[in-house]
């Protein structure tokens, strides 16, 4: 028991735990839509693009508002994708690659120019133990906004993700919904940055939801199982990092991959119908 509680004895660790809890609550619930709409690469590129916002936010607003800058960069990236991605002649993933890498590189340049005592690796791989009260407040607000939207639009998201043409026919504004979803992904990326950093954010968004997919026949069940897995991943990774003196962000990301590998193996060994499920993933 002491092994479990020791890491959370200090006030900064308690703040980190609250941040981890909020992240674990949010990530799989937005992650299922990222997976089923095939937006994983988009989410990855968006997380990288936020670096420029982190640098600008730090320079203009100070340490407490880097997440605000990151959010601005994420939304800017969304707007650029919407602007350039409409051309039928250009593959969308290629457009995302060009814009994402450009913004990421701009972020590295900007960080080099900003007078800060925080290293680049701090942003790239996260440092959950240094989250501030403002970080937690911003995270809580973003999590509330995203989860509220997902709850009240759960059916419409389900219908449109399954069959976008039919959803348009029955009155769902699917384009508006897609644009909103991209904004929510930008918010979620910002939430994850504080715990696992820019580079590893996508592991939090994708890994728990993908693992949950192995055992889910509905998207609701995938959300619920994903949330449980996400909590185990985040707090398990946090505890291991504390006791073995590993960096928390990468340890949490590795935990996600380990959990996925274990459950995938279990699914192959135990489930008779897994071949059917595997083909449908």
């Amino acid at each position, binding site marked *: 028991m002491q092994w479990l509680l020791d890491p959370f004895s200090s006030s900064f660790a308690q703040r980190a735990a609250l941040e981890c809890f909020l992240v674990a609550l949010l990530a799989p619930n937005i992650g299922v839509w990222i997976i089923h709409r095939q937006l994983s690469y988009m989410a990855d590129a968006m997380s990288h693009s936020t670096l420029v916002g982190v640098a600008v936010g730090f320079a203009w607003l100070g340490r407490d508002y880097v997440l605000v800058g990151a959010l601005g960069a994420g939304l800017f990236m969304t707007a650029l994708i919407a602007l350039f991605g409409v051309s039928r002649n250009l593959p969308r993933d290629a457009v995302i690659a060009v814009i994402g890498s450009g913004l990421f590189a701009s972020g590295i340049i900007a960080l080099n120019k900003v007078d800060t005592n925080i290293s680049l690796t701090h942003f790239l791989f996260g440092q959950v133990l240094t989250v501030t009260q403002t970080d937690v407040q911003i995270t809580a607000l973003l999590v509330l906004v995203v989860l509220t939207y997902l709850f009240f639009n759960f059916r419409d998201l389900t219908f449109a993700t399954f069959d976008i043409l*039919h959803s348009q026919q029955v009155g769902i504004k699917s384009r508006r919904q897609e644009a909103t979803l991209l904004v929510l992904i930008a918010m979620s990326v910002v939430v994850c940055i504080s715990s696992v950093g820019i580079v590893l954010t996508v592991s939090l968004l994708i890994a728990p939801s993908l693992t949950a997919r192995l055992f889910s026949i*509905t998207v609701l069940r995938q959300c619920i199982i994903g949330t449980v897995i996400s909590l185990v991943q985040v707090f398990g990774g946090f505890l291991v990092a504390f006791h073995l003196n590993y960096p928390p962000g990468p340890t949490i990301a590795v935990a996600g991959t380990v959990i996925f590998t274990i459950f995938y193996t279990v699914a192959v060994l135990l489930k008779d119908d897994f071949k059917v499920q595997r083909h449908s993933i």
Partner: protein
Amino acid sequence: MQVANPISSPPTGEILLSVDTLSVFYGEKVAVENISFDLRQGEVVALVGPNGAGKSTLFKALAGLIRHSGDVYVAGQHCHHLDRKRVGYIPQITDANLMFPILVKDVVLAGRRRFGRIGFSVSKSDRNAVAQCLNEVDLADAGNTPLSHLSGGQIQRVFIARAIAQEADVLLLDEAASGIDQKHADALIETFRRLAGQGRTVLLSSHNISYVVENFSRSLSLNATLRGDGDPREILSPARITDVFSR
């Protein structure tokens, strides 16, 4: 060719779908042009044409999913392209995201969205409507089955149930009979007969001429323009088939 028991078309039913000089252009390219025809209540009609003839485009235009010129009337009422909820478009199976984890009853529930936003918990009336629609396509026990566990023919019936849940009077089935075996194709024909008997109108696209000749008493032939309208044994006869399949 012997026609064993084609789906008959009642000549006296009211006109349910009327299409007047409908055209769709993709930029400069003509997809379908100057299409006009009427479908009566209870009719089951095949739309025949080669790949790329514009069958899916015509269906999407009729369902209000893409912009078009010309006019479409449903039950005598002129319909703006955004208001075609009484026209149920049933896409090719592969157009839906079959990797998505969803139960059969939730697919059918999507049809009820036409009448307003559906909350997290489903109302009793919507639940009853879904059960009734599944019953109509002989899938009463499949509500809690994951869609991915069904065969291609069964999935088509689920989509038909969704269109019924939408209370669509006109059903547009895009290549519903392709890729399914004879048994399921026969079952599909039976489903059409039942829908026609309930006063619904069905327009089904196909590039399988023998399937249409054997099972339908009216067909439209399309290759960018409407090439024929009538008994498939006549308009798809060897003498006229070249005209349909050449552009």
